[in-house]
């Protein structure tokens, strides 16, 4: 079974059409889906919110107000937003060490996120987790994770719970190309395929894991091709095209809700920022490669598309949206700074449930 590629093209009437083609290029069919204009604007807003949140987190990390380590998702926002826009609030996800985007796309509160980065009592984890460990169980965000591939079995368990509940919930695993080389990925996806769990496995292939290019560690070029080994659909999609991601996710969600089992979707994307925000982090990627991908920036592309092609947004609307987002980010920083640090003795709280 070859992975299928979903390519978003336009027909004569400028309607978006997705051509589904095989890896060898033969045409398998078309599909057409169009979320409402409001939804698309909301998706743009979420993407820009992630971008602005992380730009601020990076600045405040360098200023010494945020500690430890921060991994930015800049350039990959279309993946989290494209997928989460196809989910319901009760659907569950797990994230990675690069988790701010998944949190925001799933609907997390910016104030509590920023407060967590600031190590404050009002943060999502009461200051115990920081950037790498944000969770919001009330919106089905079961946690970012410091262990590569650590979240994949966990969310597969959430998929099992959804299947047992029997009310159509799905569970979504976000992970990197690097994680797709790790045992937990293969073990989980095999079980999910066999048990037909309502799952989406979303590989964010940003072409590198830390300082190692994916080309040096993946035995195949496409992570999606691995789906064949488990007898499930493998889909490749432009991870910088939020609508393409959204549509691929929508199909996979429908499949999962219908009891047909998991789908592996590989989103080809790029991390424009360094692996972490630490200054000493060494960069092995060429500036040509980084610049090339900055030209394919998912937010610029989507905004231009909505402004120029779809006419859903004016330049002025876009500017206003960005101003509102910047205000919301500033408000989250103000909230964090106004919040107290936790009491030292609270280090001993929450080891066990009471």
């Amino acid at each position, binding site marked *: 079974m070859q992975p299928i590629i979903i390519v978003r093209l336009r027909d004569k009437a400028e309607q978006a059409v997705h051509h589904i083609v095989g890896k060898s290029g033969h045409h398998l069919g078309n599909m057409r889906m169009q979320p409402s204009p409001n939804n698309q604007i909301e998706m743009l807003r979420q993407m820009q919110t992630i971008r602005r949140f992380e730009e601020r987190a990076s600045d405040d990390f360098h200023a010494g107000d945020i500690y430890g380590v921060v991994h930015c998702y800049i350039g990959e926002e279309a993946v989290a937003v494209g997928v989460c826009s196809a989910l319901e609030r009760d659907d569950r996800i797990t994230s990675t060490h690069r988790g701010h985007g998944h949190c925001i796309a799933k609907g997390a509160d910016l104030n509590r996120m920023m407060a967590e980065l600031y190590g404050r009592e009002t943060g999502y984890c009461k*200051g*115990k987790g*920081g950037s790498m460990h944000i969770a919001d169980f009330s919106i089905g965000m079961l946690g970012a994770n410091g262990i590569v591939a650590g979240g994949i079995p966990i969310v597969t368990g959430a998929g099992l719970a959804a299947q047992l509940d029997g009310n159509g919930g799905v569970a979504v695993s976000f992970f990197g190309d690097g994680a797709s080389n*790790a045992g937990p990925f293969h073990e989980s996806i095999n079980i999910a395929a066999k048990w037909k769990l309502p799952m989406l496995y979303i590989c964010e292939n940003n072409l590198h894991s830390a300082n190692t290019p994916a080309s040096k560690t993946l035995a195949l070029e496409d992570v999606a091709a691995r789906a064949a080994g488990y007898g499930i659909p493998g889909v490749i999609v432009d991870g910088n095209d939020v609508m393409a991601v959204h549509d691929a996710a929508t199909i996979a969600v429908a499949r999962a809700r219908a009891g047909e089992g998991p789908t592996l979707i590989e989103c080809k994307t790029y991390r424009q920022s360094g692996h972490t925000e630490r200054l000493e982090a060494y960069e092995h990627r060429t500036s040509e490669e980084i610049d090339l991908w900055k030209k394919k920036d998912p937010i610029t592309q989507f905004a231009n598309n909505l402004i120029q092609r779809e006419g859903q947004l004016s330049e002025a609307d876009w500017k206003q949206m960005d101003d509102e987002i910047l205000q919301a980010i500033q408000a989250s920083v103000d909230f964090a700074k106004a919040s107290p640090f936790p009491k*030292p003795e609270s*280090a001993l709280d929450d080891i066990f449930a009471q």
Partner: protein
Amino acid sequence: MRQISYAQAGSEALVEELRRDPKTLVLSTDAAPALVEEFGDQRIRATPIAEGAVTGMAIGAAGSGYRPIVNWRIVTFSFVAMDQIVNQASKIHYMFGGQAKFPLVFRATVGGGGKLAAQHSQSPYSMFMNLAGLKIILPSTPYDMKGLMKSAIRDDNPVISFESSRLMGFKGDVPEEEYTLPIGKADVKREGSDITIVAIAWLVHEALAAAETLAKEGVSVEVVDPRSLFPLDAETIRTSVRKTGRLLIADEAGPTAGASAEIAALTAEDADTFACLKAPIKRVCALQVPVPYSPVLEDHVFPDRDKIAAGVRAVLG
């Protein structure tokens, strides 16, 4: 004498041993460009993120004539390889009746202080001490790092080199000429007569700082650095305690079933040493919790020079 950092001392030992023995290999998710440059990508391998498989492969290559050095990087990632460490590496020589040698080094940083939260701030060496079949070093100075690392690479058994993340930039004297240090030999880092502090890795430096403060109060502190946790040099520790009559153990790990518990037991169960004790043994360790992120919480959890000095005053009554 020339001064280099703790991290440089480890790298220097590695490079010298790679030059010395063509059977050595390095496996890690991150291949250091300088090593690839000198030794090529056959011997210096960037692996996929697959610590379990890579650890097992190192065991297999070691049993087939090579000397792999696996860099797990942070001890956090070794947990993904627990089957290969616990069920395989630590038992393979013994279980097969000593048929083959398994010359292996596993490198991993340990410790907190970086505000990296629970998963990336661990000091779990006692879990590995408990296994029988793994040697464990945990140096506190660049000099000890270099000498012990070279011995670890030359050893015909699996050795875990735990390396304190807090000490990476710490500089100290390291001679240009070749030397090694024996695994399993403690070092008296400061002589004193009123109390022995056995301190591990970063806490050796905190204990030395506490000893300076206490000296001004008229208290003479002896600081013993075990340097290796398995084998653990009970004799040097007991000799020191027989001299001072008091023992405080400082460890960045939690106390429960920790290296500190083992050191306390080895001291107290020796009749001659027990007879010399003038006060109960005291431990100054991290609180027994996963390490929290926020600086106020993290500082509260870890021991430091002030907590050590306070502990000494309490022992002296």
